[in-house]
């Protein structure tokens, strides 16, 4: 494979990372050509036109514009090509994730906490099955971090105050680096972990081996009662609050006339900033839970509300 020809560059491990490698090779070749031409000319001129050398210096090019126009145009066309190439691969990498298999990632100074839908959680490690697209839902507890897997040529910042999701897929089983790539304080360089890609069978086996924590949705349900959400949103409550069954993924009409889809971000915002989007025909009664729930708990609440999606309201 051509990728192996670049000595220091280990081949990427997913369809997109192959594309990035190809792009890198393209960029290298383009620059090698430009640099080759430039250095050739520089050396040629330096040797031929050195002061002591008797050589014809007459007939200098005085009109320059056709040269200018041609190299401007040539560079521009090259640049345009590179731009389009880079952008198309970018769109492929950051396309909207499918929802097949979801893993939650919480970043905090200075560790990665990952949680599988079944409730298994890990620290500074992430086990994944190979050849399956996995959606990572990431949140940060404190400052900006960045989730970086060099082998996949993939990276995304994790910014506090919002969810970020990306899709990853690994082709080959193995152990790969996970780095924090955004400077986040003292132990930034210690915020590293390991991605373990496994065959699906091994992965299922691994899942069952993990401490049988109660699944996230159940924990979320417990929190839902504990934090008093059910007092308003439960059946037969005194407060008129919208029922949350069947909510996830549906369009929600808001009091300002607009409509939003009830996705993770919307639910998160509803809990933290309930007044920013008021459901049509309801009063803005819900208190903010900002500062009262951690990112971990938020994740569980979101998962719980998601799990209500199938139920009739």
């Amino acid at each position: 494979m051509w990728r192996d020809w670049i000595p220091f560059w280990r081949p990427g491990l997913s369809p997109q990372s192959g594309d990035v490698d190809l792009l890198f090779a393209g960029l290298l070749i383009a620059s090698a050509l430009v640099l080759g031409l430039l250095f050739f000319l520089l050396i040629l001129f330096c040797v031929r036109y050195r002061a002591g050398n008797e050589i014809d210096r007459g007939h200098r090019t005085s009109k320059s514009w056709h040269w200018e126009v041609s190299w401007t145009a040539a560079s521009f066309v090259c640049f345009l090509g590179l731009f389009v190439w880079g952008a198309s691969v970018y769109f492929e990498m950051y396309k909207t994730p499918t929802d097949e298999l979801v893993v939650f990632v919480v970043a905090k100074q200075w560790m990665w906490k990952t949680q599988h839908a079944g409730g298994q959680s890990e620290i500074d490690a992430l086990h994944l099955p190979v050849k399956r697209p996995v959606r990572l839902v990431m949140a940060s507890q404190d400052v900006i971090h960045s989730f970086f897997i060099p082998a996949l040529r993939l990276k995304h910042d994790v910014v506090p105050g919002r969810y970020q999701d990306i899709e990853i897929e690994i082709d080959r089983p193995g152990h790969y680096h996970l780095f924090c790539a955004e400077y986040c304080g003292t132990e930034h360089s210690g915020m590293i972990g390991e991605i373990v890609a496994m065959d699906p069978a091994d992965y299922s086996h691994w899942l069952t081996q993990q401490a049988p924590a109660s699944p996230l949705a159940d924990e979320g349900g417990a929190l839902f009662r504990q934090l008093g959400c059910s007092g308003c949103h439960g059946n037969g409550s005194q407060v008129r609050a919208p029922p949350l069954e069947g909510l996830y993924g549906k369009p929600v009409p808001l009091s300002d006339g607009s409509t939003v889809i009830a996705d993770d971000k919307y639910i998160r915002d509803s809990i933290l900033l309930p007044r920013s989007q008021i459901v049509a025909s309801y009063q803005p009664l819900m208190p903010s839970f900002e500062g009262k729930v951690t990112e971990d708990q938020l994740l569980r609440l979101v998962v719980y509300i998601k799990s209500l999606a199938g139920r009739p309201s």
Partner: protein
Amino acid sequence: MPEPPVFASQYVSIPHRDHSAELGMWVFIATEILLFGGLILAYFVYRHAFPQAFAEGSQHTDILIGTINTAVLLTSSFLVAWAVEIFSAATAKIVTWLLVGAACLGLAFIALKGIEYRKEYHEHLIPGIDFQLARPLANGVQLFFVFYLIATAIHAVHMLIGICLLLTLAIISRRAPTTRHHTALHSAALYWHFVDVVWIFLFALIYLPGRAAS
């Protein structure tokens, strides 16, 4: 006008010097526009994100003081422009009084602003020191007030600098005003008008939104 050798040797004439000074002042104003520009971007970003909260926050401000202050500032700008226009040895007295008047209006502006800050403090609307708003949209309102306080504080600092400039000029050009004083006054006036323009926009951004709703 009496004219000692007033222009430095890098210039060839008085107009040469004056035009250079004016050009310099305009470059400086361009700089100032971008200084406030950063704040304005922040404002629009959050107004886009929290439209209702910004409308609500605006209603917590005192539009009466805001409007009076705008009028005060416009008037003082007018006085300064007037002073620049009639500047000459013969009118030195009037010019002095015009400048003192403008500076006093500036001080009145600051005083009113202080009253407004005090009021907001008592209403617990100062983020970082005392912000309590149990009501809806608290977060967006808080962002609004962060913007409001920083923007008006920076504006007030500009005002204070301007007031000092005006008073200094009032004192030094009281007698024997020269073309140098005129140039200095002209530059100070440009600055003062610019501060006025900034306020015109701050007024529209801070006091006016959300009035119609209630």
